[in-house]
């Protein structure tokens, strides 16, 4: 039995219908065509589906679609604000912090959640915060550097 | 005359013989002559081999010239991940 769900996605009011067992990730990808959030595992082990739910970083594969009723969701598609890329997005590009790019949306959403609460994380804090985001291409080096340098730039701004 | 040596695992595929002297101006001729001299190898040669001429490796290049005094090795063909 489909349910009607009213929610906010990247600042826009959005209504959708979904089956109760559909995950928020399924809803974003298949019903709202927001395919920037990726499914790498479907079990919360890879972080490729990271989104913000009422200001909390979560794996959207571990949220049921109906749970989003009345909630505020932010995805990778909402990260660039229309005026330009977010500093994290820019630093990822400039520092070659992505190779294949499939994990990148999840890393960016997670990294933004970190910098929003801690503008000056240490390398170790970045690494532990991002431990739930798997990357198989980069060995993490350039990702961690990009997060640290974006943070530095944002502090100066 | 070109001295052709079998490298890698092809040596054992040719019944123990690993060196051949033959006339060949290019790789295609070389492989054809080799197949005639050593029928045991024919199947492997048809499936595809790599040819090393003076340390430079060719995977598929029939018309690559084989200089007369060059060192030629026939190798299994490589790919990668």
């Amino acid at each position, binding site marked *: 039995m489909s349910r009607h769900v009213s929610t906010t996605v990247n600042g826009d009011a959005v209504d959708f219908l979904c089956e109760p067992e559909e995950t928020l990730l399924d809803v974003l990808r298949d019903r709202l065509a927001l395919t920037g959030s990726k499914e790498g595992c479907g079990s919360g082990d890879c972080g490729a589906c990271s989104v913000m739910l009422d200001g909390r970083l979560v794996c959207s594969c571990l949220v049921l679609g109906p749970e989003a009723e009345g909630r505020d969701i932010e995805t990778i598609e909402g990260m660039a604000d229309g005026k330009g890329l977010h500093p994290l997005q820019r630093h990822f590009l400039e520092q070659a912090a992505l190779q294949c790019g499939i994990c990148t949306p999840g890393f960016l959403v997670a990294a933004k959640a970190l910098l929003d609460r801690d503008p000056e994380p240490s390398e170790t804090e970045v690494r532990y915060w991002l*431990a739930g985001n798997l990357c198989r291409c980069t060995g993490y080096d350039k990702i961690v550097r990009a997060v640290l340098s974006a943070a530095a730039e944002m502090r100066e701004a | 005359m070109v001295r052709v040596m079998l490298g890698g695992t092809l040596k054992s595929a040719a019944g123990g013989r690993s060196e051949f002297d033959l006339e060949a101006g290019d790789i295609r001729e070389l492989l054809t002559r080799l197949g005639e001299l050593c029928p045991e190898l024919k199947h492997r040669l048809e499936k595809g081999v790599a040819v090393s001429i003076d340390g430079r490796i060719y995977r598929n290049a029939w018309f690559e010239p084989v200089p007369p005094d060059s060192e030629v090795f026939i190798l299994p063909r490589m790919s990668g991940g």
Partner: protein
Amino acid sequence: MRFEAPETLDAAVTLLRGETGLARPLAGGTDLLVQLRAGFVEPDLVVDLKRIPEMRHITAENGGFRIGAAVSGAELGEHPELKRSWPGVVEATELIGSTQIQGRASLGGNLCNASPAADSVPAMMAAEATVTVAGPDGRRDVPVEEIIAGPGKTSLARDEIVVAVNLPPRPAHSGDAYLRFIPRTEMDIAVVGVGVSLTLDDAGLCTHARVALGAVAATPILVPDAAAALIGTAVGEDALTRMAAAASAACRPIDDKRGTKVYRIKVAGVMARRAAELALDRARSRS
């Protein structure tokens, strides 16, 4: 499958009670959704508990704390008073999964999922925590160690819900700690987990201690012998060695993909000792 998100506890209990098929309460969902996807459970009804206010709050109460069963690990970590009183319990909860999991996973869920390796459970057991259980006949308080009955099994009735975890007041010179062993630095299930809570007197002698182990038996276990090795001592080298030996001796593990029996028994002692040392440091530094 139906999905309901009641706003009161009574409504939730009524829903669970009224379901003739399989009903599953949903807190953080970090275990339930994985099970749903894998087809391990196929519930007819899922009851989301997160819209029930009292399940979402942390309250200081009688010198202790009352933690709503659906409060996320991240919220626990953001509560300075709780962290000061029960650092071991908070750290144990914060070890469950990634930052993303922390945004959802709850104490209640971690307990009711009834995994032998649940990180928060040995810490809660060491802390002498109780849980408040609501059901059709009202509420009751139960020691944490009585909830898990076996791997994936609880002692709760099908229409009962864990509402809150109650942590007792902390006397002076008390400290707790939880440490686990995992192969990586993050993202693994505990191969061994140890919760230790202890209290010292003014002279530095241990007056009270509890030691609990995870992932070494069918359920998390309390190890009174390990606690006894500490009580009445200054928690020196000898006492720690005896405590570690008692912890190892209490293990009844299995061989599985995460570790062997031999390994678990040995490492239980190592981790117990390290956890006790950390708890001791905390007790000494806490007036």
